[in-house]
């Protein structure tokens, strides 16, 4: 399966899960919302749901629901710093356009 975490993303995810003190991994997903149609979901996972695709990337256990999978195939999750700002960023080859603010996207 072609969803991957960069080293930096994996480091940060592991650190956050450790600080949170519980959870089985990281849930990635896509949901329909926003001005351009779809938005990314990145959450702590406390339990697996039926049909979840589960795999490890760079030492992080990742869970993705089957519906989201189609949109995320080939995506790389990175952790970046932009000026003072820092956070996770999806590099998704399926993305065609985004709304002006960049919070939602289309495929």
């Amino acid at each position, binding site marked *: 399966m072609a969803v991957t975490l960069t080293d930096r993303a994996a480091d*940060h*995810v592991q650190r*956050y899960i450790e*600080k*949170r003190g519980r959870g089985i991994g*990281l*849930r990635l997903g896509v*949901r329909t*919302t*926003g*001005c351009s149609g779809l*938005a*990314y*979901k*990145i*959450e*702590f*996972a*406390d339990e697996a749901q039926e049909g979840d695709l589960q795999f490890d990337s760079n030492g992080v256990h990742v869970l993705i629901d089957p519906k989201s999978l189609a949109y995320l195939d080939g995506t790389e999750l990175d952790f*970046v710093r*932009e*000026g*003072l*700002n*820092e*956070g*996770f*960023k*999806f590099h998704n080859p399926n993305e065609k356009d*985004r*709304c002006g*603010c*960049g*919070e*939602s996207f289309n495929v």
Partner: protein
Amino acid sequence: MPLLQISEPGETPEPHERQLAVGIDLGTTHSLVATVRSGSAECLPDAQGRVLLPSVVRYGPGGAVAVGHEALAMAADDPSNTIASVKRFMGRGVSDVAKYGALPYRFVDAPGMVGIETAAGLRSPVQVSADILRTLRARAEQSLGGELFGAVVTVPAYFDDSQRQATKDAARIAGLNVLRLLNEPTAAAIAYGLDNAAEGTFAIFDLGGGTFDLSILKLTRGVFEVLSTSGDSALGGDDFDQAIARHWRKAHGLADASGRDTRRLLAAAREVKERLSGAQSADAKVTFTWGQQLHLRLERREFEEITASLIQKTLVPTRKALRDAGLAATQVDGVVLVGGATRMPHLQRAVASFFQREPLVNLDPEQVVALGAATQANALAGNRAAGDDWLLLDVIPLSLGLETMGGLVEKVIPRNSTIPAARAQEFTTFKDGQTAMAVHVVQGERELVADCRSLARFELRGIPPMVAGAARIAVTFQVDADGLLSVSAREKTTGVSSSVVVKPSYGLTDDEVAAMLREGFDHAQADRDARALAEQRVEAEALIAAIGSALEQDGDLLSPEERASLSAGIASLEAAGKATDHRALKSAVESLNRASEAFAARRMDRSVSQALAGRRLDEVGSK
């Protein structure tokens, strides 16, 4: 594209609906801003990676404003336009600020709060604080990539209404939506997740750069209550630097140096102090303005020796806070260390042995207040499961009472009472036929009115003429949730009443509060003596008045010699009353009392026989 953070399961916010919230520790020496990202609270650094922003603002000519490190660098060259530690001036008047001694600022008397004349014009402490907050807000918005929804700003637990209001105003001026003001010790407790426990009692030990605060918090079903606060507004990490500098001066025979050389020596002392927290010895080089270069060295053991008395000094307010809370050190369920100075190993050992438990140290003590504020801001912004909210009960920082005869204070609501609070106490008239009573409301810990702060005065009139002590006047003190005090007096037999509304703590500086607490402690013996003297004087006056009126009524019961000896006794008591020895006065009162005993007995016989005249014995016996 905005950078994403990890959310709790099922709580990914809708796009464009992320609520960015921060916690701000607006400190005396430095300030911080923190937020919750991917579930964990973290302080936001500036572009150079520094999380601490010195709470210093410099106003240059032409309106140029520099905040933080940049302003701090200019403090030595332009002291009068570089405002440091502005937190001390918040909500304070010119007379309050005068108590800080010589400061390089040009203070201007302004209604309600001092102003400071700077090269950029007149600035209020609120505006200076707003400039600090604005810098933190800009840092936060750059770090979070959007406009802030709101902020939780922390204040010391002993801040009064006017200081809290001033802090809120500063935040508003800086364009921040204040979600809540949070007490600093409570924020520290939240940072450690102590609010997740069912209940417990916690000590928050906060040794900052220049101030020491100790708060005892009680948690019951998610509600933090401040049981007591104590501290020393003139004790902090800087005193440890001074101790090292003094030690070096002595060891190297350095004379009292100029301002610049002293600053260099203190900077070296501070550096060595910080390194000694992790090493057994540390050294520094100092080049003085006269060209001499010194290699200075300090062992941790030496450092601990020369600062042992400073460590002991922190335990005095600690004991007091525990005593006020009615607790033994071992009844505390957790000790939180706050402030950079608490990194010192010997301080941690002293705290651990005092409380007989290891203090919580795994969070950065300089960041812990901001981290707790961020955690609460996150919850208040709706980024956390609903239902967990903190309610903080506040306390009255100093006792409220009223003046009684002889200039003594009768405490009605003791300090550290949680508000809202209402207490009533009964008073009576002192003189026969007294028809009015002056009620003088005071605040403070001392025994004499002159040593406390006067809050308000009012009069209760229309008391029916009665003998002294017969009137029953209920005085009720009521403090509402906003800290407003109202006092009412009511004479019970007639129902006449009178009342006044006062702001209890307005105008009291934190230093004043601390100083008054310290004085109360230091002067306990002198106060007891003064109280005893005042009490004996009241006693003496009452005795002289009583004998005087008895002589008028029943003077015929005495022989001229007896009468003369009583008069002499009165004269010598009057003389003793003018002296200041309460013991001598007491014995004078006692001897006059004894001298008048026979007279009193004869008067008693006379009134009994008058009362019984014409009545049969069995009638009297059946009563």
